[in-house]
């Protein structure tokens, strides 16, 4: 099986789906001849031409608004928002329009648009090239939110997303775009949405994470394993719908939970996970739930490694929780 990185996996998924389904079109800023600023759409313009791959004017609300109209017509648009930090000009189109078409029309209209967007810090991008806005979208009824951590999942989840009937926010962990490498089968396969994956079996404490943070958590786990700790790591992969069963099964097994994400703490996705565990597994808990997250500050430039959950911070949370 060939080894590739996340960008190549995303590119592969797009190419497979565009070959399979003539309704699939790609649009966004610089996604055409240039192939996207991260090269995720590289080569698509050459293969599929100017009627399938569009460089749009520089306006996110237009990209998503137009994608909605295309989807209403029966196409399968896969718009790219160049950085998740730039998604807010399209916020109304996403939360009030895209997410609501099926509901507000009584099921008459659907807009199966898959919005790809690189997210997250660790690339010295400062406030406007580092954010993790997943909580806004998880909070919005009508959207599915997917965050892969590795090339295999990125390809399989993106293919699932593009074949689904619902709008999806597909957040790609740009810090590990190239660093996360792995074996990816050639050709077609899918990873279903709503299914988490235990990436490290353990008995002592459950660590819930997704996207780029999975790699930080794995590094932390290696450290604490040497000290005799035995964490179980769950890569959530899909934030909505959440694989509640997998989360609760692991927490009930270990009795302890650490939640890691790089978005700010207050009302971050970890708050929802904490509430879920408190509601459904309280009597299994042997320690308080711990959250290791970004701080409730804007995303900083110079101090980004202080802001981002580090392997050290995660390791400390695992130790503290395991020994509570």
């Amino acid at each position, binding site marked *: 099986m060939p080894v590739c990185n996340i960008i190549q996996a995303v590119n592969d998924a797009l190419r497979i789906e565009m070959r399979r389904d003539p309704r699939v079109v790609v649009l966004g800023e610089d996604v055409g001849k240039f192939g996207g600023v991260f090269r995720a759409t590289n080569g698509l313009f050459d293969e599929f031409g100017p009627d399938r791959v569009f460089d749009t004017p520089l306006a996110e609300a237009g990209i998503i*608004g137009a994608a*909605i*109209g295309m989807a209403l*017509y029966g196409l399968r648009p896969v718009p790219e928002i160049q950085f998740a930090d730039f998604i807010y000009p399209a916020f109304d*189109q996403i939360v009030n329009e895209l997410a609501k*078409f099926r509901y507000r029309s009584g099921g008459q209209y*659907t807009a199966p648009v898959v919005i790809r967007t690189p997210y997250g810090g660790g690339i010295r991008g400062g406030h406007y090239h580092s954010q993790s806005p997943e909580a806004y979208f998880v909070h919005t009824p*009508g959207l599915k939110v997917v965050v892969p951590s590795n090339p295999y999942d990125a390809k399989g989840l993106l293919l699932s997303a593009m074949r689904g009937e619902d709008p999806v926010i597909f957040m790609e962990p740009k810090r590990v775009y190239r660093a996360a490498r792995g074996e990816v089968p050639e050709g077609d396969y899918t990873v279903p949405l709503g299914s988490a994956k235990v990436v490290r079996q353990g008995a002592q404490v459950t660590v819930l994470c997704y996207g780029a943070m999975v790699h930080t958590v794995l590094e932390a786990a290696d450290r604490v394993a040497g000290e005799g700790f035995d964490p179980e790591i769950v890569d959530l992969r899909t934030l909505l719908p*959440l694989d509640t069963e997998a989360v609760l099964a692991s927490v009930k097994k270990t009795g302890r939970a650490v939640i890691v994400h790089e978005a700010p703490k207050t009302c971050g996705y970890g708050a929802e996970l904490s509430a879920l565990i408190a509601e459904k597994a309280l009597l299994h808990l042997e320690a308080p739930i711990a959250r290791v997250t970004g701080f409730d500050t804007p995303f900083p430039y110079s101090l980004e490694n202080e802001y981002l959950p580090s392997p050290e911070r995660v390791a400390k949370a695992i130790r503290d929780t395991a020994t509570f």
Partner: protein
Amino acid sequence: MLASARPQPDDSVFSLLDDDGRVVPGGRAPALSDADALRLFRGLLQVRLVDERMMRLQRQGRLGFYMLSMGEEATHFAVHALRPTDWVFPSYREPGAAFHRGYSLKDFVNQLFGNAEDPAKGRQMPVHHSARWLNLVSISSPVGTQIPQAVGMAWAARISKRDDVAVTYFGEGTSSTGEFHVGMNFAGVYKAPVIFICRNNGWAISTGKERQTASQGFAVKAQAYGFPGVRVDGNDLLAILAVMEDAVARARAGEGPTLIEAVTYRRGGHSSSDDPNVYRDPNEPKEWERRDPIERWKKYLVGRGLYSEAVEQQYRKEIGEEIAAALAHAEQVGPPAVETLFHDVFAEIPPHLEEQKEYLLSLPRPTNPHGGH
């Protein structure tokens, strides 16, 4: 370029019918069969009569909310220039466009009541219709959101090598939104077969048109996006049909979008919750009464020898009976079933919503499931 799409100086407004319904000398009137001319008259009357009835109902407390179109009815019938396979993205003040495409009074009234037979399942406030079987796209309250969507739809038709066109309606206040400019720009760049109909009715709730733009009217904005803009008398249905025919022909021929500014006047309030006497001179709407689009169309029919008092009375009677029947029916249909609250959020109900549904169903029902009236 066709006559009506020619760039116009300053504040001139394209018009074909004078206030007495006569075609102005040299005016190039579009071909319109007798049957269509009468059908349009019936449609105009229906909007007026429905509005009057629904406003009364709202005042009686039998309907939660309503938005009327008094004085602007002619703009709704721009869709006459379309094929059934074309697409319409309305805003909340063009019920005539829906009626003209075949939306029944029964569906219309069921939607106002949000009952179990509302085609959109009681999901939105009154006047937010959706009729996919008529290529009439679901209406949103935030203004302008439909503009880039209509552009995307038209663009998709072009990509798909079909000659469908999309039309979107909005008020002059909406021309201040980002979505208006973004949509116009995308349409110009990709030559999307879309027609933008700006109903310049002078008022955005209480804010006059002079607070929406410093430019001379709204049609001129098209120039910056590289396609024609045309100002048409929005109370002159014949002129509206003429500019629409030109715009639709342009779009179908791959020549790109057109912005049509229909200059009209909102004689009523913004909605049933509004009181325009607070912010504007009550004489102002009266001045527009003499320019009433329905009266003008009636005079046009007289000129063509198509009008008779008997025909009008027949229409009024039929429409009145249809409204009464639709109301009688709608008021006895109950609200949608409780579990439908959870339907259509996604294609399939995910586990967390299934759980919330079971929880809600386990509770006693509120005595009045409706929040409002």
